[in-house]
């Protein structure tokens, strides 16, 4: 069963190129930030992974709704794959945020809005995966996860507003307002980073989905062998 995955290879190729481009732009093209210095370059990866982290959960939300509305294993495959890939990105968001905070503000954690909402999303991701792990049977797993995904997703924008207002009323004495001078070159670098990370997400998502489908096929074979003898 020789299967040359052309699309996969293509995706890997394109995302590799874009990531390299992004790295180049972030380290060579974008200027040194006035206040924070070179450490500020983490910002591009931090924001990009935050975007993918959110987007991945949005995909899971849609996939869950589609599963409930129409049924079909493929929607659940999409949902779980997106969560797993998204978990990686949101973890990156939290870690890069923490690494950024230390040299700039002297502490590993600040309750500034974006970092906090990323932490909330991280917890939701983990809860989602724990839920799936704790349920027997693929149909129930998919169904309950879809409901949880839907309920969780609608609260994320509300959490975002709540955290923003909270921090407006009680500004973090450390971070205060966003003290960054944004120049056009930085915007370019950010856009390329966003594109790179999004492509990376799509590549990994596709791979994860193929893995899940292969696992399904294996399970079917296994059951067939056990039954047929």
């Amino acid at each position, binding site marked *: 069963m020789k299967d040359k995955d052309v699309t996969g290879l293509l995706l890997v190729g394109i995302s590799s190129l874009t990531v390299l481009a992004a790295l180049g732009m972030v380290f060579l093209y974008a200027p040194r930030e006035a206040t924070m210095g070179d450490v500020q370059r983490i910002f591009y990866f931090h924001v990009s992974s935050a975007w993918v982290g959110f987007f991945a959960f949005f995909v899971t939300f849609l996939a869950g709704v589609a599963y*409930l509305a129409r049924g079909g294993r493929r929607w659940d495959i999409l949902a779980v794959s997106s969560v797993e890939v998204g978990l990686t990105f949101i973890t990156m968001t939290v870690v890069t945020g923490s690494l950024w905070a230390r040299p700039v503000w002297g502490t590993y954690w600040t309750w500034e809005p974006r970092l906090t909402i990323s932490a*909330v999303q991280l*917890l*939701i991701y*983990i*809860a989602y995966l*724990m*839920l799936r792990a*704790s*349920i*027997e049977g693929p149909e*129930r797993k998919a*169904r*309950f996860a*879809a*409901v*949880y995904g*839907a*309920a*969780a997703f*609608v*609260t994320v924008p*509300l*959490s975002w*507003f*709540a*955290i923003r*207002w*909270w921090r407006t*009323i009680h500004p973090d004495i450390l971070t205060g307002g966003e003290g960054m001078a944004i120049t056009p070159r930085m915007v370019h670098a950010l856009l390329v980073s966003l594109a790179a990370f999004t492509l990376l997400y799509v590549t990994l998502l596709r791979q994860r989905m193929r893995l899940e489908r292969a696992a399904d096929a294996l399970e079917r074979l296994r059951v067939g062998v056990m039954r047929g003898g």
Partner: protein
Amino acid sequence: MRFIRKVFAIVAKDVAAELHTREILSAMLVFSLLALFVFSFALDLRGAMARAAAPGVLWATAAFAGILGLSRSLAREQQTGCIDGLLLAPVDRSAIFFGKALGNLIFMVVIEVALLPLFSALFDVPLLQPEVLAVTALGTVGYAAAGTLLAAIAVNTRAREVMLPVLLLPLAFPALIAAVQATGELLEGSTLADVGGWVRLLVVYDLLILAVSMLTFGYVVEE
């Protein structure tokens, strides 16, 4: 309307069962008192610190006590297969949700009615003003609704009750932040208009959660 009659029938059933055993309310109450003690000692809450911490401690306590009640309330339906009894009846699945959620809301409110005067006295804060009560009510509605839906999910997992806090707390953040912040501001003398933003957030949260739960509860309880 038949729908509403059945919702109230379910609420009445939960209240009747609770009146016979009082196990849910007593567990929630005892837990709340213990939590209150632990917070007071662990954080050394006195004077100005106590007043500042009061809204947070109140809601942390209510949140955890609520989880106890929610788990038990849904577990009751699993006991002797009673959830099947409900599903066999000609009743809308969303009516089952509203019935259970309203019952859970009542339990939480009963506990809060006991806690608020106690907190007011211990922390020296005027919690018994109508504005604070309104905010507390709004927050509890959203929490009970989300909790009912998620407890119905949790009861089907291997981990059972342990799963509920993991599922519920991240989803409850908007309501908890809003309720704590609004209560805090009200205690410092703001008016309801001043905390309008938080109140609106709570209302939107409640409506969204109720809508999602109403639409998806059927998928949770039916096989």
